């Protein structure tokens, strides 16, 4: 996956793409403002965050028990629950269901877990056509790209790029440059697909253990269509999505939509609690829920990283991240970008492969300040950086992969000198006197920054001169 040069190369390309950077920055500043306006009362926001954190903490603390309750209640409602340890297992389960029904295509509502599974590629390889129906996902599917944001996957594209893409791929239709006209194009292209689709797939925003309910949040109606019009509905969800009670949904929903896009609520909140009953005239005949682990139980085993399982995927951390805002999601090279991706992806894949990603953060703390469930993202990123250089074998997979003997030696010498006043005085005296010998360039550092140089006088010397006498 990401060797240092790969991540560096992607960052270089992202920084060099002025058009995409402008699109992303404009959208992110807009989302920051919308969120701010959606929470006019700071005290109320903090109470709401208290509630969100408490609800998710309670759910995560009782995760195995709640998953069993969820399965029992889903089964009672007629929802078939499947368990997948890995993405490959989840793909196999979805493919088996589709093959049983002879499905030729699968219409998809937006699902980041399906991205995590790499489902579209697996389906295509098996001769089943995946059809993304969320406008943003549709745009990037047509463009052959991955999402650059977890809730706004085509945020890097302007309306003109979208119009050009539609003209290239759907030449028999007229496509205006106006956004409403482009929505109209997508509506008429996808309406045929909704009409004819053999099966539909969705993610899940919340799974309610108490009632056996899948809660789906969306604005376009594509999520409802994908889960209602075809004969089969398959929902894919991470195991951390379960909440205990229906009463837990309102505060989380309030936090989710307001943190994500500043909306008081999305156009549709869809509660699916079972397939079509005998006397019903529509709705899927089968509803399947695929519960995906894919490394989550390993995060669960780590008391610190477990906190990341509270995530409700609102995207606020990336909207407010100075690194994400300047790069966009593609530079990360992972399914989940931004601060939450910087925690989840290296922890899941291993620091030997994605350790460098933990450095794509300034640790400024904006992410944890806006996180609706108070995940301490900078602390977790810092923890992973430590795991990446530790030599005791503890920590997540691939620990110690980024340890450099030279760097370790430098820090040991630094610690030695700074703990011994005589050595420290000798060191500062030497550094200030021999400052002309300091290197003018430091590889990798001075390319984009000024090289630090020792001052002519040390701070100790200057303060003594001014009469400060601490000792």
């Amino acid at each position, binding site marked *: 996956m990401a060797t240092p040069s790969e991540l560096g190369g992607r960052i270089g390309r992202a920084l060099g793409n002025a058009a995409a950077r402008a699109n992303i920055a404009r959208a992110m500043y807009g989302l920051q403002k919308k969120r701010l306006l959606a929470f006019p009362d700071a005290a109320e926001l903090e109470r709401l965050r208290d509630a969100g954190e408490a609800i998710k903490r309670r759910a995560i603390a009782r995760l195995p028990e709640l998953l069993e309750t969820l399965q029992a209640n889903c089964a009672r409602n007629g929802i078939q629950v499947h368990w997948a340890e890995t993405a490959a297992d989840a793909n196999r389960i979805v493919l088996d269901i589709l093959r049983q029904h002879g499905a030729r295509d699968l219409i998809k509502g937006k699902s980041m877990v399906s991205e995590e599974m790499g489902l579209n590629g697996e389906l295509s390889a098996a001769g089943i056509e995946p059809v993304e129906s969320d406008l943003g996902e549709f745009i990037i599917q047509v463009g052959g790209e991955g999402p650059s944001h977890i809730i706004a996957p085509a945020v890097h594209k302007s309306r003109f790029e979208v119009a050009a893409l539609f003209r290239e791929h759907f030449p028999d239709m007229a496509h205006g440059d106006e956004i409403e006209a482009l929505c109209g194009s*997508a509506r008429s292209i996808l309406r045929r697909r909704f009409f004819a689709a053999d099966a539909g797939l969705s993610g899940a925003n919340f799974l309610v253990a108490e009632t056996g309910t899948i809660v789906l949040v969306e604005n376009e*109606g594509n999520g409802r269509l994908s889960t209602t019009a075809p004969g089969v509905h398959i929902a894919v969800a991470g195991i951390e999505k379960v909440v205990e009670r*229906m009463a837990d949904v309102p505060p989380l929903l309030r936090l989710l939509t307001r943190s994500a896009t500043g909306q008081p609520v999305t156009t549709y909140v869809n*509660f699916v609690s079972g397939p079509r009953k005998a006397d*019903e005239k529509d709705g899927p005949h089968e509803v399947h829920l695929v519960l995906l682990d894919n490394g989550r139980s390993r995060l669960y085993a780590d008391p610190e990283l477990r906190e990341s399982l509270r995530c409700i995927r609102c995207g606020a951390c990336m909207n407010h991240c100075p690194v994400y805002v300047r790069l966009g999601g593609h530079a990360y090279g992972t399914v989940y970008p931004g601060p939450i991706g910087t925690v989840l992806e290296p922890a899941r894949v291993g620091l030997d492969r994605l350790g460098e990603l933990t450095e794509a953060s300034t640790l400024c703390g904006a992410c944890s300040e806006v996180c609706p469930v108070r995940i301490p993202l900078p602390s977790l990123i810092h923890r992973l950086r430590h795991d990446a250089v530790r030599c005791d074998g503890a920590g997540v997979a691939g620990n110690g992969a980024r340890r450099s003997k030279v760097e370790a030696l430098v820090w040991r010498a630094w610690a030695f000198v700074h703990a011994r006043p005589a050595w420290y005085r000798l060191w500062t005296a030497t550094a200030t006197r021999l400052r002309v010998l300091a290197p003018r360039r430091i590889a990798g550092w001075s390319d984009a920054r000024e090289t630090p140089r020792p001052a002519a006088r040390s701070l100790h010397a200057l303060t003594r001169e001014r009469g400060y006498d601490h000792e």
Partner: protein
Amino acid sequence: MSDARARILGRLRAAAPATTPTVVPTPSLSPAAIPANHADLLQSFRERLEAVRAEVHVSDAEGWPALVQRLARERGVARLLFGADGPLADALRRQFADDGPPALVPYADPIEAWKEELFYGIDAGITSSLGGIADTGSVILWPGPAEPRLLSLVPPVHFVIVEAEQLHASLADALAAQRWAEGMPTNALLISGPSKSADIEQTIAYGVHGPKAFVVIVVN
């Protein structure tokens, strides 16, 4: 895949803290922003909906069928879909008995029998509701045999009747009052305006996959 289930739950159980996890209480939320009385509920409900380009009309128990007919005619609706056994059926049939558009079309058969007509031959659908939510401008629907799911989704215009007495301050209030936790229908919905997307340039555009127009008639 029951092996997978056992292994996943086994890993989670092995990782869970040895002591029983303390149940973290959920702090109660202040009801400060919640409107206090009937008129305030209606006003908030209306403002929220109008802010997302929904149409809101206030009518009464006798007047709403005529209002629906007039609004449908103004929109040029030729075929209006309704739930044949739904709570609105009798009133609609009485109102639409005279000549002239729109023609009432009952959602009488399973979708498989007439999917093409539903997708391409219906101009609008009308449903009842289980009330509304004032602080978000949401309408609560429990689709079922009488008023199926696609009735409020596939036609380009959705008319919905909301009883003013069934307005709740918040979703939390509505869930508690309607006892959702005690038994859910196969599908329950909150609808808060016409279909929309901000996926291009984070600019809101209306009418993507769901109804392009959402017309709420409050019966007061």
